[in-house]
């Protein structure tokens, strides 16, 4: 998604403001819009592209809202986003790993 150029180890500690979508010169409203687009695309990739399902009690609206909250907070880390994603989606064969 052209958001990261770092390896797996380094990526977790990157802040949202280190990702390509996060323009800190824009207004908060415009950043919220960009975060919505990214969250929608992450949901697309997880569910349509990678065969993930929602965890029990989670739906698309809840997953999107949780992701957008992290994506709009410049101090949140990629690993915080990963934690949210992990709680919202069950990836294909996840339980076997």
């Amino acid at each position, binding site marked *: 998604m052209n958001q990261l150029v770092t390896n797996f180890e380094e990526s977790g500690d990157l802040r949202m403001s280190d990702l390509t979508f996060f*323009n800190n010169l*824009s207004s908060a409203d*415009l950043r919220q*819009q*960009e975060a919505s*687009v990214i969250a929608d695309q992450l949901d697309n990739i997880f569910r349509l592209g990678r065969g993930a399902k929602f965890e029990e009690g989670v739906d698309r609206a809840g997953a999107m809202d949780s992701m957008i909250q992290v994506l709009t907070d410049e101090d949140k880390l990629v690993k915080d986003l990963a934690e949210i994603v992990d709680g919202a989606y069950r990836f294909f064969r996840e339980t076997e790993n």
Partner: protein
Amino acid sequence: MKKIIVFIFACIINFCAQGQLKNNDMTGLVKSLANGIHGKKFSGEEIKKIVNGIITDPELYNDFWKNFLDLAFVKDSKKFNFLRDLNIKFKPFQAEDTSVTGLGFSYDFKFDFAKYTENKSRISQDLGFTANGNVAFKKKLNPNDFLESKFHYTLSFFKGGVIENTDTAVFILLNDLEDKLASLKDMQSPEAMALREEFGRHLVLTDQYYYSVAPKFALESNQDFTKKQFTPGVIIGFGAKGWNTKSTLSKLNVLDYPFALLRLLTGTDRKFTPYGSTLPAIQLAFDYVIPTGDAVRKQLVNNSDPFPRFKFEAGFRTFISRIRKENIFFNADFRYYNELNAKDVIKNADLATQTYFVMALQSTTGMYVSYANGKLPFDARKDEVYSIGFNYKF
């Protein structure tokens, strides 16, 4: 306001006192106070001073609040679920013109009800309420006496983004490729590039489009609501992302051409590759502005009457290069404001139309070079990055 605060604390203390406040910071605090006093002779004034020092410490109330939340979620998670969306932080307040400090708190509450439907587009409807502000127990000590409570409704349409996979063998293959990529140190190595290419062949990204309409209605006030104003408006947003770098949409991102060239020259990309994922985001807004505190405007038109205003904003950010462990980005933002049916006196003072452009080179470790030109309207100046000129912050 005092009654509300006292009521909240009564509820918290009552809740904590139901035999559940065990081994926490509060009891520790009381014990250490008792131990400190025990066996020593203190005058009434000294004890009063010690107690005052404790009860004016914001951390005491932050501990109370944290304990209350912990117990509330354990005791009855459903009943107190709304508290998960409420952030309260107790802190000291000090007015600008005095050295006296007082206690207060800031709050931030967000509640959203979202509905999602899917047909040709993915449609999100989001009805929400947000509230935030600063409340000082002694109002005159509040340097930022401002509360905002906002209702909003956002209708968003998303389309495209990825081609659906239905073959479980592809899911397994993508998982394996991801595991291999995660073990690599250099994401620009030939091995990593080959794995990413194969990943991209099986997870096919497409163009993604977005548009939204968001009416909003806010109530702004001071903490005792003796001054208040309503600020309605509507925001219309547009976005497009060419996630596949070979798509026509990506090639249309001419703003990224100079940076695609830089990425090629610095070896970040092997080919000249404009990123469609960095197409500018666009918003239009119609606001009903209430010019509170705008002394210049008040002087010109002799009143603080509200006025309608159109706003256009476009934001652009792209990746330039990775030098050692430093990622370099280019950011830009352009805003245009136009007061509708502005009076001549406002036009003559050059306040009817305002533009603001700012761009910056930024790195992940803090290097920052920016340039800004133009001016933001009075009510939007909190977003001003720098005034006209070049700025270097190393």
